[in-house]
């Protein structure tokens, strides 16, 4: 038997924005994984055309710092939202 939809299909702007924020929170680690797979394309350091030691190090730490900053931003936005909406589900 078909299940009756419990939630509306379209949401008002506030709810819509929160959904997209959650999407962003889910996508952030995916972006991190993709960026951290880039090293697989490098030639080993020390070989001709190989990646430089310092450059490799700076790249990985750069991605890492960007992830921290992105997570910080999203956590802040999501928390603001949660306060407006009074949280999700029972406490």
């Amino acid at each position: 038997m078909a299940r009756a939809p419990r939630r509306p299909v379209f949401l008002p702007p506030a709810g819509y924005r929160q959904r997209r924020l959650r999407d962003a929170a889910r996508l952030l680690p995916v972006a991190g994984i993709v960026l951290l797979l880039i090293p697989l394309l490098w030639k080993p350091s020390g070989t001709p055309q190989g990646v430089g030691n310092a450059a490799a190090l700076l790249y990985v730490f750069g991605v890492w710092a960007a992830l921290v900053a992105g997570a910080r931003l999203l956590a802040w936005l999501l928390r603001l939202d949660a306060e407006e909406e009074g949280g999700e589900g029972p406490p």
Partner: protein
Amino acid sequence: MILTFNTLVAVSLGYVAMLFAVAFAADRRARAGRGGWLRSPLIYTLSLSIYCTAWTFYGAVGYAARSGLEYLTIYLGPSLVMVGWWWVVRKLVRIGRAQRITSIADLVSSRFGKSVPIGALVTLIAVAGVTPYIALQLQSISLTFAAFTEGLEGGRADVDFVALWTAIGLAVFTILFGTRNLDPSERHHGIVMAVAVEAVVKLFALLAVGVFVVWGLGGGVGGILDRIDRAPIPMWQGNGGRWVGLTFLSAAAFLTLPRMFHVLVVENDDDRHLAVASWAFPLYVLLMSLFVVPIAVVGLDRLPEGSNPDLFVLALPISEGHGGLALLAFLGGFSSATSMVIVATIALATMVSNHIVAPLWLSTRRPDQVSRDLRGTILLARRASVGGVLSLGYVYFQITGSGVALSSIGLIAFAGVAQILPALLGGVFWRGGTAKGAGAGLAIGATVWAWTLFLPSFGLAVIPATVLENGPYGLDWLRPRALFGLAGLDPLLHAVIWSLLLNATAFTLVSLLTFPKPLERLQGAQFVNVFERAQPGRAWSRSGAEVEDLLVLAQRVLGTEAALDLFGAEAGRQGKSGHLPDPTPAFLQRLERELAGSVGAAAAHALVGQLVQGPGVSVEDLMAVAGETAQILEYSARLEQKSAEQERTARALREANDKLTQLARQKDAFLSRISHELRTPMTAIRSFSSLLAEDGLSPLEAQRFARIVEAEAQRMTRLLDDLLDLSVLRDGQVSLKRQHGLLADVIDRALLSAGVARAGLRVLRDPGQEAVAISTDLDRLAQVFINLASNAAKYCDADRPELRISVHRRGGQVIVDFADNGSGIPVPEREVIFESFARLSGRRSGRPEPSGAGLGLAICREVMARLGGSIAYLPGQGGAAFRVAFPQGLAAAAE
């Protein structure tokens, strides 16, 4: 600063003493209810840092010196997990709170139908995987101690000696703060606080060494980058398989390591802390690994050829002559090791006691005989497990010695606990996972891990060279390093790929082919749909349990106070007074969940199951839920709520009505009784006084008659006094005298007046408890105590009558319990004993008819009400028991 062996020992001991003080203070604050800031997101994030053990602190530099960038995989995996908290961690935390999860074994066992074998299997995997890890910490402490003391005055430290004493010290700390009580929420404020402090110490120490290396030795940022570029270690070595594999492995281990699960899920008490930890924890590990490469590069440059790179963090400051910095580095490493060991030991001990000891212990008892000291047994098992786990770690340390590089032991542990991952994720995201599937996956994964990685790590003594070369019994395809002929792979990668692949395959296939039990399906739905409001179905469909038996059971697990509170609250919710609610399915479920917080879901289910007749949930119950559409469900839920409300009101009304009818009957009985009580002495007085009026009595006779008349008149007076007392108390016109005194003195006085010694009643008291200074109307209080004690003396029908008086304090209330060992008061009569003239009939008639008008308890109740307190019957104590509660200091308004 001149370092000697003795200063090193003194500094270490001082540091440990500081940790004790921090843990103690935090525990005390939390228990006094002032621990709000102990539960801030910052503390939570810092407690997650036990991920960074001595392996990080020392081993990362060694790892970087050997394999370049690869050391970062260990920290990138967990960072990705935390950044992606919206995927997995958030759900785990929510489930952990909703189901009162106590450990990772508890979560997996609870998801798969509260299965005992699965809990035990996960526990065994965890113990096997984490023991080497604990050994690793002991090794690092003793190694650094030895490295530090080399060439110091006072001689070189004995490595074994240091490891042994470290293990003993950690056991003491863990037992003191980790197993002091059987907290139903399984939270340890003191330990979390101590771990947070250690997190700050180790970060500060590593940053200090890093800053010293970069700006003191390396010539600033530009200089150090230049050095890194020219360093003999290639940063990227082109091993993409290990790069991806290790990142995945560390992410898996971050979720499945028992200690990580403990701080991440069990000690969490607010979802919002996760939002902060999602960026703060990656930042923390980023800072921890920031200076690792510079330290490795500068160490390789400046330290003599052949130095152990695992000790560069310590060796660099020493060789440069910075004793203070070296000491700081030592403390950093020390705190990394100790905090890991403490939390890992608590997590493992909880798992061992809940999933191995408790089920074994329950299975050796007959169903109706859950012995009295369940709580004590579990605490004892937990303490013994702490000792056992640490001893195992020490033995492993002794066997393997210090030959293995720090990083390889850590990775073996990671691969071991990662075997839990398929069952964990499969259980949380897929309703189709079954207990048989999870069991099969766990067993196969653990076996493959042990064969390909764990056993070979012990060296050739366990797996001989011929087996490594040719496989067991010449079975070529079973070679530990080349399973199914997959040769030439990195051993770790080889083990991880095969074990997790076979594990996940077995889990999925067996789950697809088997049919879950009803309880499994129910739990599966509750776990997977934890964010949906309406939770379908209950684990108990029938309720054949005697509620008093349940209370007795709950007291044994939760302790008397907590159990009485729980039952009292439920009774209130059902609209009943007293401590005995109806054993509805909903209540059984709530009770089971409370018990699960102390002993784990599997044991709690077994305990409740022993008392509830009939099966738990059945397929029909599930079908009944599944057959309704969501709308009907919602509608009926609303109806149900409304009808439950009406039910409550109706019950309250019915109860009131019953009481009124009973009171009306009593009122009649009261009148006839009072006339009877008054007439008997009156008749005696009349007849004897008329006898006295006759002539010819001897003086002796006259004297005797006069005495009878006087005694009867006194009895009447007493009765009238009581009646007067009662009515004065009820009108509220009584004046109270506020006096100061000791509770013990009041009880002494009451027992003396009640004449319990003459009645042959043994009184059990605890003078320590009774030393409470109170300020209230002591005479009135004594009156209540006299009544209770003399009742016990009169009515207790045991062969060797005993009266136990126990005192405790809660808030500003003093609570005095009087419990005898007789057969108690039957349930229907408990309602009326506090009414006037309610003397119990029936069963007690074997005893001589007691003298007294039946006003005693009625007066007691009024007195206690005047004193701002209460008196109530206390069920489930094995006899008649009364609880008297009153404020320690009488409010001025009541005077």
